[in-house]
């Protein structure tokens, strides 16, 4: 991996709410084309980390560089331009409830590009199909969709501008195991064909085992280890042992081994 391949670099990040320090001297790197999973206990600041990287929260100290640009030092225009290069899937979808799925996907396209309407419609239809939604879901409203379909619709919107990085906040939370596995596969397939990088936060051990190239463990206010899963499992830390060595961790590991045929 060369320097140029690092597309997100978080250095010395510190986040503080009042007197409570959430992150202290946190470092993290994401390289082009890889899927990085962030795990950590409840309250370990996974979501705060994500919000710091996508610029929704100004860190107390430290720097966040995306595509080599320090997001704290960007002007508003540069910031907007940067934002068109990443897609974010929020935990509950965050679809605009007054718009149909199709119009949700069209929002960023209409905002950033001046395209004729029928081309816009075709692009939206393609994104909706890419996200694995049936065609008749396009004109439904978010309130009429099931949990899995909301995630897919939100993914279609996140993919609207062909992002180079996709941020996923608990992509499989609230989905049934079949839906969750299908969603994992979808992310993997899309990453392989569209070539974006993924930073995801998850509690789902199956997601970690099936799609993540590297796993970053958040504990004691920093990233304890960020490495391929096999290395992380061997890492000597009480929390990590409990996390991967527990009954759920073991069964997910077994399932992953069975799936790959080892």
């Amino acid at each position: 991996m060369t320097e140029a391949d690092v597309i997100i670099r978080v250095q010395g990040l510190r986040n503080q709410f009042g007197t409570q320090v959430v992150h202290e001297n946190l470092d993290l790197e994401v390289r082009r084309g890889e899927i990085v999973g962030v795990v950590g206990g409840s309250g370990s600041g996974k979501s705060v980390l994500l919000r710091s990287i996508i610029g929704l929260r100004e860190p107390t100290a430290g720097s966040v560089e995306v595509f080599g640009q320090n997001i704290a030092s960007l002007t508003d225009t540069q910031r907007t331009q940067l934002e068109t290069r990443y897609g974010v899937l929020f935990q509950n979808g965050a679809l605009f409830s007054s718009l149909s799925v199709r119009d949700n996907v069209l929002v960023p396209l209409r905002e950033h590009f001046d395209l004729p309407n029928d081309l816009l419609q075709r692009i939206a239809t393609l994104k909706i199909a890419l996200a694995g939604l049936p065609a008749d879901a396009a004109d439904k409203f978010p309130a009429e969709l099931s949990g899995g379909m909301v995630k897919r619709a939100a993914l279609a919107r996140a993919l609207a501008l062909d992002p180079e990085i996709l941020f996923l906040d608990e992509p499989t939370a609230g989905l049934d195991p079949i839906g969750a596995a299908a969603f994992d596969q979808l992310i993997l397939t899309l990453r392989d064909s569209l070539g974006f990088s993924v930073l995801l936060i998850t509690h789902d051990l199956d997601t970690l085992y099936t799609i993540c190239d590297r796993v970053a463990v958040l504990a004691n206010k920093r990233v304890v280890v960020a490495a391929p899963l096999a290395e992380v499992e061997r890492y000597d830390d009480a929390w990590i042992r409990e996390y991967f060595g527990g009954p759920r961790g073991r069964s997910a590991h077994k399932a992953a081994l069975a799936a790959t045929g080892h």
Partner: protein
Amino acid sequence: MADKGMAADIAIDHAGGDVVLRVSGDWTLANAASLDARVRKILASSTNATRIDVSGLGRLDTTGAQLLLALRGDHADPEFLGQIGEERSSLLHTVSEAMRAPVSPALPQTWSPLDLLERIGRGMQTLGRNALQLLGFVGLVLQSFAASMFVPRRWRTTSLVFHIEQTGLDAVPIVALLSFLIGAVIAFLGATVLRDFGATLFTVELVSYSFLREFGVLLTAILIAGRSGSAFTAQIGSMKMREEIDAIRTLGLDPVHVLVLPRVLALVIAMPLLSFLAIIAGIIGGAAVCALSLDISPTMFISRFQETTTLRHLWVGLGKAPIFAFLIAAIGCLEGFKVSGSAESVGEHTTSSVVQSIFVVILVDALAAIFFMEIDV
């Protein structure tokens, strides 16, 4: 990706018998508009391309892939995917799979005069349904009240007191201030008109009659509809949204008893008190204007007031307060229960609750005015 990058284009090349489409530049979203027009033109003209040359292709994203596949059309070019490189061929493959999915056309947005009729019809239907639901709900509340009235164990005293504080005590400053101001305005209006007849003194009657019979209670009702009725809808609505209402049911409790009764009773108790306050404030407002600009001293105002006004006007006014309070609270709570899944729906029903309660209050007030006139009170 806002930068246009390398301009994208398609060149038509006649090489012998072959017609080759040479694709160049960045096929990305930024160039999509011009590319789309170009692709359509080529597809519309009877250019029977036998080959697509992608050696000059720059960047390619999903939109570009979509256009490229559209350009290829139905005649599958065997070499086409081969020469594009492995990474891109998987992109093209995924996109072509997605394009093969059945397409639902965007719903056509048309408008005809008939739609207007339809909307009017729907509006009337909703109105009728709302009226029926409100009547049903009023019955439900009364039934629930009757069932728990004589069972002190089931009284929700804490909740009742809390809501009396929220809807009554906390509303005192705004109700008093607004009534004072309206009282002053009415005194000014009356004075301007009555001066021409040399009957300035009748301003006292104007202010006291209007506040005792109508304005005191009506102003309070409108303020409370906007302040507490909407709050009831939002509170119950957000509880409905978070399935708290369902939780109350599964715990063997009655939502009407737990949530609605304390609110309705609180308002029924608070509103006559607030209305009385509004009447006093309004008359003081009138008296202030009389004293400051009409040369009617407060003593004169009070003695005139005592001479001309009988107590029954106060009862006519205050008698309406509990009825208005009951209606406002019932509509507020009912609209809260009508909230469905989304946060948007909370907003919708809150608006609807305020509009409905003000409408019903004014309607009932008008009916009451006719009634009192007929029986000559």
